């Protein structure tokens, strides 16, 4: 990606992007590491610190042994594994709450208890007229433009993992189709992940259901929903299958990001600015060292992820800092001839600063540390419900 910015704009744009991209890959791999460790802690009963260490070692081995090709094969395999492993969860969960209607009825009760209209948990657009009338705390414009336009185009068209796979395609047409074909299997995932999440929400608010969610930061610990549900419904056998599917997906997520960090650091930062013109062997060693260093820093990022109310908050924050400014720069660079290198550079910088200011002046509900937001001291707006969060 930084390479394109260099061709289209100039060296400084590329340099800035390379650095912010390297930071993003580390956080993203930290999130996967945290999720993996949480899974081990919840289902296997291992200590959280030990789980983090073990996942770091596994990914180190995994990254050293595999290449891009094996990573892509693994992703196809694990997609089917996730579908088959999670399908029983959806059925058993729906059976437990009394089918789809039962789930809707229970969620209506949850919404009423939370002070919303009955359908606030179960309809997409109906209660998105104002941020205060739905539990997400976002109005329709934010959903359509923020998630639908900026972040989803940013992901499907400028994300390293997607673009890397497009580069591996054997023809131009196949490469162009990458985001379209990739989006098809991705559409199954919401059914397998969001429906269990809705079931968990319905069950957790009913003390007689036998399913409990631990609290975190003034709300439920949403990161534990899937591991806890697997443990709740799955007997030995399928439980192992679900566990394997999740572990495989977190590991490949981490490995993909660590590999991306390695590439960006070695080619776009080290070879371009620190030591150009060295031998291939030297760069290979640097790349190996970057892998180890990337994993070590990811461990730190995993603990940062653990401080957030849930990883979704953290992930959106990272996207706002890095993906959103990048997407705007790409969009203008591709469709408007008069965008200059200086314009792109300052656009990227001001986009990142705007995100930092927004982060400094707002805070999510239950935020107790400055990493989560509000580091400028005065909180102008709290999420999800206005000033007091």
């Amino acid at each position, binding site marked *: 990606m930084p390479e394109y910015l260099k061709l289209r704009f100039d060296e400084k744009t590329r340099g800035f992007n390379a650095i912010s991209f390297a930071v993003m890959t580390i956080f993203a791999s930290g999130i996967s590491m945290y999720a993996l460790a949480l899974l081990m802690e919840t289902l296997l009963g291992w200590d959280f610190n030990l789980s983090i260490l073990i996942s770091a070692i596994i990914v180190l081995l995994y990254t050293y042994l595999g290449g891009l090709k094996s990573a892509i*094969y693994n992703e*196809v*395999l694990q997609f*089917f594994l996730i579908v*088959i*492993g999670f*399908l*029983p969860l959806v059925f*058993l969960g729906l*059976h*437990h709450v009394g089918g789809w209607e039962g789930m809707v009825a229970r969620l209506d009760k949850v919404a009423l208890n939370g002070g919303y209209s009955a359908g606030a948990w179960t309809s997409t657009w109906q209660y998105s007229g104002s941020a205060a009338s739905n539990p997400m705390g976002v109005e329709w414009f934010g959903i359509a433009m923020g998630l639908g336009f900026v972040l989803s185009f940013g992901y499907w068209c400028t994300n390293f993992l997607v673009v890397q796979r497009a580069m591996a395609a054997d023809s131009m047409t196949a490469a162009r189709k990458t985001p379209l074909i990739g989006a098809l299997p991705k559409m199954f995932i919401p059914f397998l992940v969001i429906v269990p999440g809705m079931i968990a929400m319905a069950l957790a608010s009913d003390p007689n259901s036998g399913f409990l969610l631990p609290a975190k930061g003034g709300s439920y610990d949403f990161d534990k929903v899937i591991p806890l549900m697997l443990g*709740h*419904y*799955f*007997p*030995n*056998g*399928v439980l192992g*299958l679900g566990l394997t599917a999740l572990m495989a997906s977190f590991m490949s997520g981490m490995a993909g990001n660590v590999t991306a960090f390695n590439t960006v650091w070695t080619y776009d930062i080290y070879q371009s600015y620190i030591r150009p013109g060295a031998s291939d062997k030297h760069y290979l060693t640097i790349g190996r060292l970057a892998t180890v260093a990337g994993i070590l820093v990811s461990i730190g990022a995993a603990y940062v992820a653990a401080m957030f109310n849930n990883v979704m908050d953290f992930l959106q924050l990272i996207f706002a800092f890095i993906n959103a400014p990048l997407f705007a720069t790409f969009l203008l660079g591709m469709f408007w001839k008069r965008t200059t290198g200086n314009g792109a550079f300052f656009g990227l910088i001001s986009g990142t600063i705007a995100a930092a200011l927004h982060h400094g002046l707002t805070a999510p509900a239950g935020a107790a540390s400055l990493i989560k937001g509000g580091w400028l001291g005065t909180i102008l707006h709290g999420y999800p419900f206005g000033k007091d969060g």
Partner: protein
Amino acid sequence: MIDIRFPIGLMFSLLGLLLTLYGCLTRADPMYQKSFGVNINLYSGLLMLVFGLFLLYRSFLSRKSKKTNN
């Protein structure tokens, strides 16, 4: 480029077989109370077995048609 259907089909067939057998052997086990008395191992195993064998069959067919073309 190896045909990706082969390794995936093989893995799903083997895992499916394993899970089906395990499901058959633990038919009346009290652990199925968790899944409301449904022998989820047996059904998941069978589903995986069918999916795995289907992929193996498709991979076998395409290999055969390649041979006849040459």
